[in-house]
């Protein structure tokens, strides 16, 4: 491993970024789903910095409560404080915590990296919200998060009137979708907002992310069995529905729905479709013309032909270099190599390395 590390250092030479650490993560038996997501999150710089800041502010309080947030913070802190610039770290405590917390990830079976990312971000949000509530109960301690006046309406259906919290996790990943439904009888438009931490997109063969996003926001007609209850008409009516992005997130996480349930087969199938993703992206399906630009900084790649087996690796952009993380191994790759992970134009292709989760950061 030491040799591999030095190879990367040699490749970067004096271009090795000041203060940066490139560490592989040990695999504890099918934990590549976790490792690939952890690398993407570690190189999500605003997230990492805020996590480390949180860790700095909170570790003095003693190791009272060991939770997923503190385990993650500890791991990131451990990586960035390494004396060596490259090497391998075992995310043992973090992985143990994940398994303890969620029985889904307890087995040694192949897991879904997107499910894991989703679980992790929601878990972090929950912990921060709980801490904030506890802080409110005891006013001496400072709140780790703040309220916002025009934040999204809480989706929690419980009757308790609760101001939604905007934690630093929200600030990084949360966007707001608005679901506009226009009654075709009375023309009334009903808009319902919902928050998201990532966008899951249906994919098509030989398409682009731009095209998938357009389809995501395309107009859908609700009719026949699927009519819409219009409050104004007080009855079920035909309607047109479309999903737009009301507030684009700072970190845009796009999940390509490559694992599709095929009813005829009675099981999930992996779609190896070729879906190209640009290194820079703008969202055109926004409520207001956003024209704000995103830059790709990480890709979680699923390797393999089926949904129940395979491997995860990640591509990460750090200080204008692209790196390839495969559990313990870290290599430098050329930017042009990113396009080898687009997918296959033909189903029977031997290429099984497909971009699965894309991480874009807003340049604003």
């Amino acid at each position, binding site marked *: 491993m030491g040799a591999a590390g030095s190879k990367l250092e040699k490749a970067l030479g004096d271009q090795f970024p000041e203060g940066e650490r490139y560490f592989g993560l040990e695999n504890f038996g099918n934990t590549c789903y976790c490792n690939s997501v952890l690398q993407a999150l570690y190189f999500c710089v605003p997230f990492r910095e805020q996590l480390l800041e949180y860790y700095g502010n909170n570790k003095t309080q003693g190791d009272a409560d060991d939770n997923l947030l503190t385990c993650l913070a500890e791991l990131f802190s451990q990586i960035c404080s390494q004396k060596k610039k490259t090497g391998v770290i075992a995310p043992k405590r973090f992985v143990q915590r994940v398994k303890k917390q969620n029985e889904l990830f307890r087995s040694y079976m192949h897991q879904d990296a997107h499910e894991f990312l989703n679980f992790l971000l929601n878990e972090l949000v929950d912990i921060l919200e709980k801490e904030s509530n506890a802080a409110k109960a005891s006013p001496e301690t400072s709140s780790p998060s703040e309220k916002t006046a025009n934040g999204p309406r809480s989706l929690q259906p419980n009757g308790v009137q609760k101001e939604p919290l905007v934690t630093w996790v929200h600030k990084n990943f949360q966007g707001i979708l608005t679901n506009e439904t226009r009654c075709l009888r009375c023309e009334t438009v009903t808009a319902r907002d919902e928050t998201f931490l990532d966008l899951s997109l249906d994919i*098509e063969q*030989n*398409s*682009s992310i*731009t*095209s998938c996003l357009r389809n995501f926001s395309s107009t859908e007609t609700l009719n026949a069995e699927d009519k819409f209850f219009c409050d104004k008409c007080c009855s079920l009516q035909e309607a047109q529905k479309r999903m737009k992005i009301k507030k684009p997130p700072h970190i845009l996480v796009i999940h390509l729905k490559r694992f599709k349930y095929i009813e005829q087969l009675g099981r999930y199938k992996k779609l190896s479709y*070729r879906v*190209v993703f*640009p*290194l*820079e*992206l*703008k969202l*055109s399906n926004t409520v207001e*013309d956003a*024209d704000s*630009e995103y830059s790709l900084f990480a890709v979680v790649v699923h390797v393999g032909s089926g949904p129940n087996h395979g491997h995860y690796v990640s591509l990460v952009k750090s200080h204008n270099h692209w790196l390839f993380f495969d559990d313990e191994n870290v290599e430098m790759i050329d*930017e*042009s190599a990113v396009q*080898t992970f687009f997918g296959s*134009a*033909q189903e029977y292709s*031997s290429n099984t390395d497909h971009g699965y989760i894309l991480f874009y950061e807003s340049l604003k």
Partner: protein
Amino acid sequence: MSASNAQSPGLKTYFKTPEGRYKLQYEKTHPSGLLHYSHGKVVTQVTFAQLKDKPVPQPTPASSTLSSTSGVRLAAARLLGGGNGSRALSFVGGNGTSKTVSGNSRIGSLVGHGVSGSTNGPISSNYDGKGTYLIFNVGDTLFVSDFNSQDKDPIKAIHFSNSNPVCHAFDPEAKDGHDLVIGLSSGDVYSVSLRQQLQDLGKKLVGAQHYNKDGTLNNSRCTSIAWVPEGDGLFVVAHADGNLYIYEKNKDGTGDSSFPVIKDPTQYSVAHARSSKSNAISRWHICQGSINNISFSVDGMFLATVGRDGYLRVFDYSKEQLICGGKSYYGALLCCAWSPDSKYILTGGEEDLVQVWSMDDRKVVAWGEGHNSWVSGVAFDPFWSPPSSDNTGEGVMYRFGSVGQDTQLLLWDLVMDEIVVPLRRCPPGGSPTFSGGSPHAIWDNVSPVGTLQAAPSIRDVPKLSPVVAHRVHAEPLSGLIFTHESVLTVCREGHLKIWMRPGHAENQSSSGSETLLGGLKDKPILTNKVGSSSLRQ
């Protein structure tokens, strides 16, 4: 008919346009056993080549090959409509012009058979088409197919042992034997005589001149190569590191070919070779990141480049001066092409758009929306003539085509009255908000020479919709070429299709009254948000 299309079920062998039906006439491909995956992913590009001047047949042993060749040549001249003056695609009639016939001692002994009229030898029988060829690269091989034959397989394969050919260009006006230039992924560049390759029975390049040998000058991948129009043997090679080099084909490259270090990689700079014996003769540093495609205006006055940084740049070639350019909506630009009158440039790229750049306005004047993936090839149709002016008023001035990684060929009509003129006369206040800068500065004045425009805002650019959208291959496409009688499409994996224009197909069916493809007909041909609204004010 070879339009069976066995390998791609579900693909139609024709498509309908307002002027009639385009029919799949020929397919060209390469031996299927070729394992080009092992050579890394190389995208197939295609070059159209017409050898204008067939060697004069020897009068004495009247071989059947030679007499049929001259007979076919007459047919080719008839088919191609003789000298119809399009230099862009080199459809000059089959009659010989004297300037092409000249001996060249540098090339070696073989060349005498093909080029020099005085020493005509026997011509091998694998070379007896109409003089029109398609040159395309797949993996480590460069293939040549006879454009007019029904034969799917190439007539010639040239293997490269150390690197892959990635770009190539043919000069129909070549004044001596070397008319084909080839750029490799190693950065190496060759010039050869196409005729000489066709006469040779081997699988190697013959009689080649080698430039940037082993990447001594630049070891990054060649990305695009072009002859300088009327350039007397000059050609330009663009590289993946943002530099382009100008070479002279008749010059020995033995001199010191080093160039000074680029001081500021973010700035455009030109360096001339220190030694007069050097070949390349100059280096232009265009941008950071790859130059993806270059294109000369037909008159040779301007050179356009597009690249990884998303910028289109237009240079005055002889003055070596940056004239204008602009940023894509987002992402890299992948391809560019000039209108036959050098007034407009098409670009295509990673934002799934075809952009129309106006040289008069020095900005983007229209966006073509219709691809579902990256746009990998664009071209104006130089043979398009607007429908007869029976309905006076807005006339279709340009026809252009685009191909994308969505496997589609799209055809577009650009109506000048609707788009360009209203934009320039856009009244103050009548226009939507503009991002960055005063709207008056943008609309009333053309930006100063040498400045690059920022990415346009989505609402500022009039949108076009295609008149035709047709899925032509199973694989993502990489290029298209308009010829007098057809449009040619090529996919990344090296399969070519030739679609005959209405009225040119072999078994022609009635076509004139065909309607548009479903789904497109209910869309207006032109959605002109900015222009039309201001026109009506």
